Each structure stands twice: as C-alpha cells, then as structure tokens.
C-alpha cells in the first residue's frame, strides 16, 4: 500500500506511541432486528429520493405534489363556497388518482429491488445477520409505507380542510378513517404487485414498463368488460369482473364495507357476499406477493 499509517516510534518509558493504525471495534452489534429496521428506513427514504441523487428526488416528489394539489383545491373551493360536503369522498380520491399511484409504484418498486438484483448486491445482505425474510419484509413494508404516505397525505389535507370548513366533525372523522383503511389496503396490494414484477425484471426500464402494463392493462380490460356487461344488462357479472384488476378490487372492498359509492359502471357495488370475496382475493394477492418475493430471494441467495 502506498501509505503506511502506523507511526513507527521507539518503545520506552517516556515514549508515547500514537497508534493511528487499525482500530478494532468493541462496540455493540445490534443484530437482525436493527438491520431490518435500518433497511426499512433506508428503503422508505429512498422511495422519495432522500439520501439519493437530486435527479432521483424529482419524480417521487413531483408525484406527491400532483397527488396533493387537487385535494388542496377541493378544500379551498369547499371553504370558499361554504359547501355542505366535500366535492369528492375520501374513499373515491385514490380511485380517481389511480394513474398517479400506478406511476409511482412503477417508478419506485424497480428502484427499490431491481438495483440490488441487477448489481448483485443481494449476496452482501445475506452474508450478514439479515435473512431472506428480513429483507423481503423490510422492502415490502417500506414500499407499502411510501404508498400509504402518498395516498393518505391528500386525505389528511381533505380532512383538515373539512374541519376548517366546519363540516360535521363526527361524520368527517368516520369517513376519513374509512378512507385510511381503504388506502392502507391499496398500499399493501399495489406494493406487493409492484415488487413481485420488479423482482423478476432486474432491468429497471423493463420493470417500470411491466408494472405500468400490468396495472393499466388489467384496469382497462376490466372496466371495458364491466361497461359491456352493464350495457347488456347483466349487472350481476360486474362485481365478479371487478376481481381481476387491483384498483377495481379495492373499489369492491370499500363499496361493500367502507361506505364508499362504487365507481363501477351503473354504480353497482358488490353485495356483502361478493364483498367478502373481494376482501379474500385482496388479502390472497397480498399474501401471494409476499410468498413469491420470498421464493424469488431464496433462489438468488448467494
């Protein structure tokens, strides 16, 4: 090596040796749970570009602003016109803004997992105390949390605005809580789908395209079929068709149980029985996403 760091000093009673050579580490080693928490917070920050380059902050921050601005405008209108209710339900907000949410998942899911896979950083994690389950849980939780922040922040804006406009506290609080449950489910569902797709497409560009394709094509197909079913008068089929795309799935769940008006054509939401199926399918997809990620990472282990 070019530079020798150890000070060569003659030993003796009066001589002090200033050893600036290698220092050992005797401090605490905080283990698995700490590593998992660190990975979670690093991934969550990364999902908004924090701790990364300026360039990678642009898109997530922009999408966050785009998510919140309509809510702010609605609130301003509601306050100014002294409206009796908000122009849009809490539960409806995410459905209306689904394109923004899809774009966010498509951009952040690949950056969260594809980099580690593509640059083969994964073995460095698994040669440490952290294990496959820790890695998958940290990444899943981080993206779901990031999505929750993205979808819950405008609801919070709406809620605060509603209170400022003095629109019945109890009613608003109940609807706000229902909205939060709905976007929490949506965050888990979208994070699972996005991560699974990103984890099998190590090239980031393909990952982005694949996530967008899956989310928009499934929604396009499902809403077209629903419209056809509606036009032909077979309204009974509409909720069942809704099972096949993530956003209509969430719509079904919240129309059945969270007091939302359905965005399905004709406003036909699922009945309670059909709603239970929607909930089960949602939870099933979330569990399947987690399972698939575990399998994927057990394979790439080392």
């Amino acid at each position, binding site marked *: 090596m070019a530079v020798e760091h150890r000070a060569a000093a003659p030993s003796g009673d009066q001589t002090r040796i200033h050893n600036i050579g290698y220092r050992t*580490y005797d401090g*605490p*080693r905080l283990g698995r749970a700490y590593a998992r928490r660190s990975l979670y917070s690093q991934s969550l920050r990364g999902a908004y570009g924090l701790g990364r380059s300026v360039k990678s902050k642009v898109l997530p921050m922009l999408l966050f602003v785009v998510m919140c601005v309509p809510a702010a405008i609605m609130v301003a209108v509601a306050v100014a016109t002294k409206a009796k209710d908000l122009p849009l339900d809490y539960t409806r907000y995410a459905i209306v803004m689904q394109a923004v949410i899809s774009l966010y998942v498509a951009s952040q899911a690949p950056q969260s997992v594809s980099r580690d896979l593509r640059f*083969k950083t994964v*073995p460095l994690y698994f040669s440490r*105390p952290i294990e496959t389950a820790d890695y998958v849980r940290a990444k899943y939780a981080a993206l779901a949390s990031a999505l929750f922040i993205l979808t819950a922040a405008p609801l919070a804006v709406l809620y605060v605005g509603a209170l400022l406009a003095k629109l019945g506290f109890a009613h608003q609080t109940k609807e706000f809580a229902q909205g939060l449950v709905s976007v929490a489910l949506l965050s888990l569902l979208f994070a699972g789908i996005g991560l699974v797709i990103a984890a099998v497409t190590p090239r980031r560009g393909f990952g982005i395209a694949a996530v967008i394709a899956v989310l928009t094509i499934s929604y396009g197909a499902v809403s077209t079929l629903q419209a056809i079913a509606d036009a032909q008068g077979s309204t009974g089929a509409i909720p069942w068709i809704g099972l096949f795309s993530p956003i209509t799935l969430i719509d079904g769940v919240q129309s059945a149980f969270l007091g939302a008006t359905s965005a399905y054509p004709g406003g036909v939401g699922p009945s309670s029985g059909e709603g239970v199926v929607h909930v089960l399918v949602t939870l099933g997809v979330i569990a399947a996403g987690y399972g698939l990620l575990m399998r994927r990472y057990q394979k790439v282990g*080392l």
Partner: protein
Amino acid sequence: MIATESLSKRFPRVTALDRLSVDVGPGVTGLVGANGAGKSTLIKILLGLSPATEGRAEVLGLDVATKGAAIRERVGYMPEHDCLPPDVSATEFVVHMARMSGLPPAAARERTADTLRHVGLYEERYRPIGGYSTGMKQRVKLAQALVHDPQLVFLDEPTNGLDPVGRDEMLGLIRRVHTDFGISVLVTSHLLGELERTCDHVVVVDGGKLLRSSSTRDFTQSTTTLAIEVTDSDTHPDGTRAVRDALHARGVDIHDEGGGLPGAGHILLLTASGEETYDLVRDVVADLGLGLVRMEQRRHHISEVFRDGDEQRKEAVGHGG
C-alpha cells in the same frame, strides 16, 4: 478458525464437495482449486447459507448448521463477482453495509471512514462507484467485508480482473488484513503462485476433494535451491558451463536452468545439502578464476510442488526422510 469433518455437498447432478475434512487455524489461508473445484460452495456452507448434505463444519467454534446468524455477524465476505451499485458513493454504500451488519449509525460512519482509508481509498470515496477503476472497486468490496471488524473474512478470488500491479497491491493488502488488523483470512484463488507470498497455509481442493493442506513453509522449504550466476573470462568463454562441469565432477547435482526465465542460460540451480555446498561453490568458482555475480537461495514455488503432484510428493517425502 474453521474445521470441517467429512463435509459433503451433493447436487442432483454434481458432487460439489466430497467428504472434505480440513482444519484452518488463524492467519492467512489460501483455498486453491480450479474453477468448479468447490471453493464457492464451501464458503456458502461456512456462512451457514447452504446446508451440507452430510458431515459437519464449524466456524469460530460455531456450528454452521445451527449458528449461521452468529457466524455471519463475526465474519466478512467479499464475493467474486461485481456487487456494487454504480450510483452511490463508496462511503454511502459501506455505511449502509455496516448498518446491515448491526453497527449503530455513528459507529457505522466512523468505521467506514477508517476502513476505506486502510484499503487505500481517499478523496474518491465521495464519488459514485460507477466511475471507479477495477482496482478501486475491489477495494470497496474488501472494505465492506471488513467494516464491521470481523474475526475472519472470506475473500473469493479478490485478484480477479486486476493487472499485475493491482494484483500485487491487493495481495499486500490481504497480508496486512492479518498482520496489521489481526483478522484471519480465507482467500480463494485458482492461481497457486499468488498465494505463496500471501498465505501462511494452503488448502488445495480438486473436484470437491481435499488434495493437500499444509503450511506454505512446508511447501517451499522442504529443499533449498541455490541459484548461481558467474562471469565469463578469457580462459573460460562460457563460465556457466565451466562451473557446471566442475561442480558435476565433484558430484553436485545441477538442475536444469530456470526454465524459460530471462537470462536462464546463465543461471545454475543446484540443491544445497548443507553449509559445505556454499564453500564448495565458492572454491570452485575461485579456482576457475571467475567472478561470482550471484549466489542466492531460491524458494520453491508452490506450483513446482504441485506440478506432477505424485512425483513431487514422493520427492518431498524422500527429502523428509
């Protein structure tokens, strides 16, 4: 440090390790074998990431089958392949890896700065890794394996892709990991020659079987070879030939001149049987009136020991007796 007992790893089609029993003590140990000899499989098992088909192994006194997490907290691992994201700086990356090893944030930053300095990365550590040379990348890979101050590091082919100068620097660094940092090293390579200067002990595997395990001193000092170079004079236009003939006449065994090395024709290699060989050479050269340019001890290269394995081993045993 490491002990394995008839460790086997069988995949459906291949046997990667076949009843491997080996003991590795503190210091720098080389694990040598051709590609596919089972080196990487062994490291995976030792990290507790892949169960052995049969047999058992211990690292730092901990059983790999049950204490994998505890082992991984105390060892470092530098993979053979590229593993660095190009868009972050070395500092950010190594800090993150230190935290993944369980170091608290402040300690992670401090250890990262120290470790990167020790592996020889200075100002460049704040730049994105994508712009680094291969040598610098290898140093970052080494730094992330050392950042949590492990008791033992596994270095998988650390000299891969380096030019001769970079190779020497990396080998020097590996040596320092043990001598200065007090961390034991298991380093794999498919090049025997590299490990001679660096390792205290060499384990050779082939086809998943243990071929040999012994200290490098055993390899290279079982015999002493003298290299001699002399001047030519008017009476003896070919001084080398004259000395060879004279020594041959006195019953000293002359080896073939050092193979294809530059100036090989002018260097005589002979086996020293003791002090008297040195005196004899001095006297012979003086009697011929030639100048003695060089008389030095040559250590055998490990590769010589392994070349024609069986024959050499017999020879080594012969010398031992």
